[in-house]
């Protein structure tokens, strides 16, 4: 068996400043990995490098492609990388505005990835869009409404539908529940967990919310100052943190 993603010695610098450095890990099919750390710890930089939105200065991001097996996405051609971005990868942004076309209807938003890979039958695109809206609990009669008329939670769910419609294998999530009410967060987390299980997705979730990773992630990486200071099973890292920074992080969480 091959890992879906194999990251080796990844580094990104902003001039003399370190974005992230010396990051190595692998991710296996069906695994959800959380990345936590405070603002500026490099977790978002790392995510951008993994998703191909940012070119790392050093290191490899080897993805197990469907047709060619493991390929370094850092050195692969841009068309190929962008094709991955539309098919096998998905990116759920913290702000729905970054991940949705606000002026395009919900159905059009979901259908875009299908059309991008060649779907040319309106009826079938619409059927698939309806199916996906249902799966993310958006009423069918909202299919022609634009996301700007949706609540924050609905926008986030629409973003998920739009991303998962092409059946990706790896989902990058940047603070997927950030900015949502707690009750809406819970519903979204449940939805994500169900989808991850049903579709056998692998996911990398960047967040600063330890409760989110505990419920969503199998594994956890803790970042500080651009480096991974601790990694392991989520519950093990949270319940028996080894590194001083992780201990501080865990002990800083407010108990309800």
């Amino acid at each position, binding site marked *: 068996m091959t890992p879906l993603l194999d990251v080796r010695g990844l580094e990104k610098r902003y001039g003399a400043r370190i974005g992230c450095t010396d990051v190595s890990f692998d991710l296996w099919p069906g695994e959800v990995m959380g990345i936590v750390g405070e603002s500026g710890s490099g977790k978002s930089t790392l995510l951008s490098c993994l998703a191909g939105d940012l070119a790392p200065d050093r290191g490899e991001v080897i993805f197990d492609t469907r047709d060619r097996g493991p390929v370094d996405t850092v050195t692969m051609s841009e068309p190929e990388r962008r094709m991955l971005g539309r098919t096998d990868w998905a990116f759920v942004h913290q702000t729905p505005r970054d991940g949705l076309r606000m002026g395009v209807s919900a159905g059009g938003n979901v259908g875009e990835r299908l059309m991008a890979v060649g779907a040319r039958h309106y009826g079938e695109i619409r059927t698939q869009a309806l199916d996906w809206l249902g799966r993310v609990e958006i009423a069918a009669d909202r299919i022609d409404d634009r996301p700007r008329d949706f609540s924050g939670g609905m926008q986030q769910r629409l973003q998920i539908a739009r991303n998962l419609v092409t059946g990706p294998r790896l989902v990058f999530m940047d603070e997927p529940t950030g900015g949502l009410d707690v009750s809406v967060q819970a519903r979204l987390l*449940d939805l994500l967990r169900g989808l991850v299980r049903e579709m056998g997705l692998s996911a990398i979730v960047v967040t600063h919310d330890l409760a989110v990773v505990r419920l969503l992630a199998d594994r956890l990486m803790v970042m500080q100052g651009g480096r991974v200071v601790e990694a392991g*099973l989520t519950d*093990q890292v949270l319940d*028996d943190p*080894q590194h001083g920074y992780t201990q*501080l992080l865990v002990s800083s969480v407010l108990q309800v």
Partner: protein
Amino acid sequence: MIELRDVAKTFTLHNQGGAVIRVMDGAALSVAPGECVALTGASGAGKSTLMRMIYGNYRAASGSIVVGGVDLAGAAPREIIRLRRETLGYVSQFLRVVPRVPTLDVVAEPCLALGMAREAAGERAAALLSRLNVPEALWGLSPTTFSGGEQQRVNIARGFAHDYPALLLDEPTASLDAVNRGIVLDLIGEAKARGAAIVGIFHDLEARAAVADREVDVTAFTPGQAA
């Protein structure tokens, strides 16, 4: 099935001057299929710590913890994830679930994770919940709002949903009435009968006497207190 050798555990408190606390040393344990071993010792002696190390929740400082052929002390996360999904069940004292998920789904989840069809997993969950006298009216609600006893039974149902070859039980009968306690003890007995290796913590002496084949006093593994 469960084999511990010379296991030690330390906690390093980086934010309190780097103090290193050694809480366990030389722990050893062997549980065969169909056997139930009860961990004993005073509060704070390390029963829960040992249990958590067997589950991979706490990291061992040294030694080996082999469950179903996997050494949790050195295994990669994905091996432990797989072990927990297929081989090693855990009924903790506390219910930790995604809020707003219905009880039935919470109980069915271990089966779903193993790829069981939704309907079959639901039936299995329903059977366990009825057996544990969780009223059907509650199945569609999230257990987060339930009473302690109800939560405990939901937790047990979840822990027994899949026939794990190895089971860890942390106070499974703690807040249950006599009837439900009896049902849980029956469940444990059935698990033993099908060959599950069980490690449990039972403060309830009657319960312990009813299911445990052996007792292991963890005080023996406490540094400074061992002979």
